[in-house]
């Protein structure tokens, strides 16, 4: 989780990713951010996030994103 928080904080230093739960709905993360994020995550966690996974539910909070990473690691 710590690595993920580092990636997120680097992208938007002014956002409190511990608390935010509507990152996509509130437009804190846009499609540009999501695409930048998946490259970092794929590399850091050795997973493959595909277009199918790029839905708001998976990117609305750090927790949801971490759950996605764990799910992909298990596959």
């Amino acid at each position, binding site marked *: 989780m710590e690595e993920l928080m580092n990636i997120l904080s680097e992208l938007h230093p002014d956002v409190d990713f511990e608390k935010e739960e509507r990152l996509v709905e509130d437009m804190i993360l846009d499609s540009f951010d999501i695409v930048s994020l998946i490259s970092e995550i794929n590399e850091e966690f050795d997973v493959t996030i595909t277009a199918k996974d*790029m839905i708001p539910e998976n990117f609305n909070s750090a927790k949801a994103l971490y759950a996605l990473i764990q799910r992909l690691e298990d596959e």
Partner: protein
Amino acid sequence: MLFTSYEFLGFTAALFLAYYCVPKKCQWPLLLAASYIFYFIAGPDYLIYILATTATTYGAARLIEQNADRQSAYLKEYKAELTKEEKKDYKEGQKRIRLRWLVVCLLLNTGILAVVKYTNFMIANINDVLAAFGGNRQLSFVTLALPLGISFYTFQAMGYLIDVYRGTIRAEKQFFRFALFVSFFPQLIQGPISRFGDLSESLFERHAFNGKTVCYGLQRMLWGYFKKMVIADRILAAVTTIIGDTGTYHGAYILVGMLFYTLELYADFTGGIDITIGIAEVMGIRIQENFNRPYFSKSLKEYWRRWHISMCAWFRDYVFYPVSSSGPMQKFTKFTRKRFKGALVRHLPVHLSSFVVWLATGVWHGASWNFIVWGLLNWAVLVVSEELEPLYARFHKRFLVGKSRSYRIFQMGRTFLLVCVLNLFDCYHALSDTFGMLASLFTSGNWQVLWDGSLMNLGLSGLDYGILAVGTLMLLLVSLSQRSGSVRDKIAAKPYAVRFCVWYGLFLIVLLMGAYGIGYDASQFIYNQF
């Protein structure tokens, strides 16, 4: 049968009546019949195209889902016997089969779209190349019917197929229900491009007559007709005059033309969507919103989140995300991250994916270099904005303007002007005309036409200008009011006399001030041609 024709009003009125008179289980079959009658009237030859898209997409989706179901059943049955590697190999093999169905269906349907929409554009370009090399031979243009709304229903069907492939929705089992999803007539000609998951529930469920819903739907339609007939079709005369004669109308006229066209496009397209959503609402069907007060955007990026929302979401989900998360693009990203440090280079893969999206968006809008350049200019502005973002942030911090009201208004004005300039690429057929007219803004020096009465010669009378001014003010006031919730809810909360005056007044305005008469061509909504 155009939305603004008497035939269409009669058609929808009869449909509304029948919809609530037939047994509820017959409501969606009635809608299917109505949609096909609507399409048949538009052009009997078009039916074959929409039927082909419907049948192939339905079949491919069913095959993909059956394969996925078989895979799940097999893995469940042999869960204990198979090793992890065997399961992985099996899954990949099945996925390849599903991908094959997907690709075949996508190629077939986008192929149909490409042939009917772009063949003559390709021929024109080939002829240009042949002529440039001194060849005497020229290819002949072909006559192909462009089926009504083909870009919209093809995209809607392909979105459905991809969603089934991704497993985010279940494939529709009944062919005729799927046929209705593809052909639902109010959204057939200019969108929105609905998702099956969003539309299907309310499209197929049984609806009892609900006075409030019917009333709200009719009000929404009325507001759409007001935008289309009182504003868009009135201002069309001036726009046509200005863009029709580049020799006379240049310089300051272009500024007027850009502003007028941007107003026309807004009133025409959002008005059409209001009518679409209103018709559906009368029947209890929910269609997603396609606009969110776009001219209040503070940047082009924000504008594209608020204008033609369904199309932008389509390109994001089915082009931008797949391209940017694809294997080659991820490899390229890895490569740039390892080799280079600068932000621009690190962002290069995203910008490259975005380039593909904007190229496709331009091509989708029309078979013309104007649209392609329009798409790429949008892309260029977005890239520059993205890369200058840190600079803007420093500027806002240094001068403490980031959150001030006046600065926000400045940002909105700046974005609006930018959109006006980009819209000019919609207007002229030749790129040379577009660039020439843009340049004339700075070279003609004919600013006196703005106040010496020349604007009265654009096909609009003083009364027309007055109506347009009041109409635009109404659009602005409604948009401002929408910030704090539904305008219809607010009006509904008023006493009966006020409600009556508002809606009856609007009805009279449409009736008395809509653009009718000799020479008035209720031919097209601007987005019909896409």
